């Protein structure tokens, strides 16, 4: 079920009511067990709502890692522990690889063979990609690797562990929590203060604004430009890229905010996943602020094991390119995602080879220079987003080619008008302005609607305005899935 649907609006109050009711049980350990069991049932129900067949897979994946954790804890022999971890990696990544990449690799191999004149045949399978597979697989791996590295002990309590892996607020699209951060929250009583509850509601509201008003209104423009099937001018392509940049940001950060807010209603604190990334002044800074849970996962589990940055510049560059390319592949079984990842890796290289330092704190940098850096970084990410969104490499290259051609200087308005997109651009543009404005004003906060410190009048005007904007300016076509659900 989607966070912004009526079904979830029914589901959540029921779960919360039962959750707080069970919280009154005594002793507190009994309450904790009951609440964890409720969360487990609710999470499986939430997940099964997509497709009941997915439930068996998440159960299997969780069971494997539960057993692996206990097996790792039971032995100190290094070689044996390595084999046990390898079994977990093979099982988890094998499941992920099969469901997500089987058809992609078969098709790519056949294409490669055909390009050298070898006609081969192989069957592709009708494999449904289970929602959230990439996310909970990575989350589960942080547990087994954590136990292997002795950063945390194995979890014997099965309910708590299964609830941790399947925790519904962040199950299908993150944040990808570290076991060391989230699992302990299932093991001690959780107390929800009125302030925390209010904060949770505020963050959910902000998330709904990002998704329903910003992302979904941008999607109307983006879908029309990218899915047209005919070449567009550079200026129109750039418009499409611009609106997609905010569609994916609104969509994904919106989901994350709703996830964090929902979790906080129950006394859980999840990690921040976005920190106003489009205000970044460089690509490295962007990747410290965008999808933080995934970036840090790849840093800790791919980049650092490869050697990280404490090697020669050439190896550093190699490690960066591998990490970003694999990250691109994680996003989807298509060469466009691989190229997107690789391109972001390429963007990093000047910082490696030219010895680029992080820009000085903003108060020492002229505003104009900050603006130029921010705009340039945003432009680079926009170009990369074209690959992310395009349906094929050919379409992506055609659009990028148009951006870097003279047609970039043509007026896009007549074309947008002929596509019937002027009103949509107006709504999407207004939504983006509100988003950027509020995020700038609240840039030192975790989310823009974090206004607990303001006076009551200001808060209520802000709440009323935000709810009014969501109600009156949300996109009202068919409910658009969150983009990251396909990963």
């Amino acid at each position, binding site marked *: 079920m989607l966070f912004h649907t009526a079904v979830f*609006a029914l589901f959540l109050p029921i779960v919360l009511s039962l959750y707080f009711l069970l919280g009154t049980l005594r002793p507190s350990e009994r309450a904790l067990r009951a609440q964890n069991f409720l969360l487990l049932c609710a999470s499986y129900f939430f997940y099964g709502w997509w497709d009941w067949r997915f439930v068996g897979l998440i159960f299997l994946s969780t069971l494997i890692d539960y057993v692996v954790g206990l097996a790792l804890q039971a032995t100190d022999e290094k070689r044996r522990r390595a084999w046990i971890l390898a079994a977990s990696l093979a099982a988890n990544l094998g499941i992920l690889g099969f469901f997500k990449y089987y058809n992609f690799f078969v098709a790519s191999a056949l294409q490669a063979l055909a390009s050298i004149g070898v006609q081969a045949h192989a069957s592709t399978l009708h494999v449904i990609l289970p929602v959230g597979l990439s996310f909970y697989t990575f989350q589960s791996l942080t547990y087994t690797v954590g136990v292997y590295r002795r950063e945390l002990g194995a979890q014997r309590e099965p309910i708590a562990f299964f609830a941790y892996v399947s925790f519904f607020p962040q199950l299908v699209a993150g944040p990808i929590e570290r076991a060391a951060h989230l699992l302990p929250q299932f093991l001690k009583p959780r107390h929800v203060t009125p302030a925390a509850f209010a904060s949770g509601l505020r963050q959910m509201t902000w998330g709904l604004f990002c998704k329903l008003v910003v992302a979904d209104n941008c999607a109307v423009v983006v879908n029309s430009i990218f899915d047209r099937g005919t070449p567009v001018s550079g200026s129109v392509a750039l418009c499409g890229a611009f609106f997609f940049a905010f569609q994916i940001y609104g969509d994904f950060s919106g989901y994350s905010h709703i996830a964090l807010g929902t979790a906080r209603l129950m006394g859980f604190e999840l990690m921040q996943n976005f920190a106003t990334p489009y205000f970044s002044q460089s690509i490295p800074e962007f990747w410290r602020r965008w999808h933080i849970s995934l970036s840090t996962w790849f840093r800790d589990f791919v980049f650092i094991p490869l050697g990280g940055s404490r090697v020669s510049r050439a190896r550093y560059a190699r490690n960066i390119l591998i990490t970003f390319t694999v990250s691109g592949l994680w996003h989807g079984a298509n060469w466009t995602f691989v190229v997107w990842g690789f391109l972001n890796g390429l963007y990093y290289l000047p910082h490696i080879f030219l010895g680029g330092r992080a820009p000085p704190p903003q108060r020492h940098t002229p505003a104009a220079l900050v603006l130029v850096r921010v705009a340039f970084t945003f432009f680079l990410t926009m170009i990369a987003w074209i690959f992310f969104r395009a349906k094929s490499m050919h379409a992506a290259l055609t659009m990028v080619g148009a951006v870097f051609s003279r047609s970039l200087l043509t007026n896009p308005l007549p074309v947008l008008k002929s596509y019937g997109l002027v009103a949509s651009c107006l709504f999407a543009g207004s939504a983006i302005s509100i988003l950027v404005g509020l995020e700038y004003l609240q840039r030192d906060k975790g989310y823009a609607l974090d206004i607990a410190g303001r006076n009551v009048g200001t808060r*209520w005007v802000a709440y009323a305005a935000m709810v009014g904007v969501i109600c009156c300016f949300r996109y009202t076509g068919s409910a658009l899935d969150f983009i990251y659900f396909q990963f």
Partner: protein
Amino acid sequence: MLVGTALFAVTNVVAYHSNGYFERERDYHDEVTGYFERPHATAVFAGDSHVAQLDNSLLAPDVYNVAWGGDSLREVYAKLRYLVARHAKIDTLFLTADPHMFGDGRMESSNRAFVDEYLLLSLSPYGFEHGWPSAALGTVPLFNDDFVQYLKKTITESLKHDRQKIRGGEEDGEWAQLPAAERLKIASAAGAEDHTGIGAHPEPFQWYERIAALAQANNIHIVAVMYPSHDAYIDAIPPQAESLVRAELQRLNIHDVLDFRRAFADPAYFSDPDHVSRRGAIALLRLMSERTGRDLLARDLLARQ
């Protein structure tokens, strides 16, 4: 929290009573519930604007019309289900069988949200695009997607200094004053546009089947009616589409089929290529009365024969 909830409630009330969308919704509901102000009504007309031209002021006391411009077969089902659930004593349903009701243009209706209430109240297992919770939530004005769409459209049109033209809003008489060649051209174009996609979607046929099943379960006799149009409008119907509709009526054992599409050649009987004028509506009701053996026309109009 209480203050916020109260504010939200007040905003909804204000939106409901001040906005044109909800005014239209109230008119829509009045037309349906108006059935119960005719205690002797046992025959009901249902369909879209083609049928709505048979205004209730023209009808006999035991006949009532719940048709509304823009209705698709889903709305027809919802209304019938609602009336039956409220113990309406209907013995005859004059159900539109115009082929365009099975095409692209009737896949979604601008009235779709208006009938959610009927489907919810009659505990319908069908008809909720996003599930019944979403439909229930949509009864709250600020959560109503169609209202939001209407609001956004109003804003964009006010910015364009445009006024939305109401379809088929020509005054009676204007159509007849057009040259024949012009009428032919307009009718052809309208016919081609209205009859695309017939047979491409199973949904309209499913709804027709549900209406037939509901009627049968409540001993309601269905008379399928095809309404008068300009010849060029009818000629634009693909032959296979025509066969599909006829076959569907056969399959559902609806044998009482009144095809009045070519009943009138006089342009004075029309307000546009596919809607009869008031004069045409009266003439049509007389024809229907003769064919069915049932007085459908209001007494004072009958007396003027």
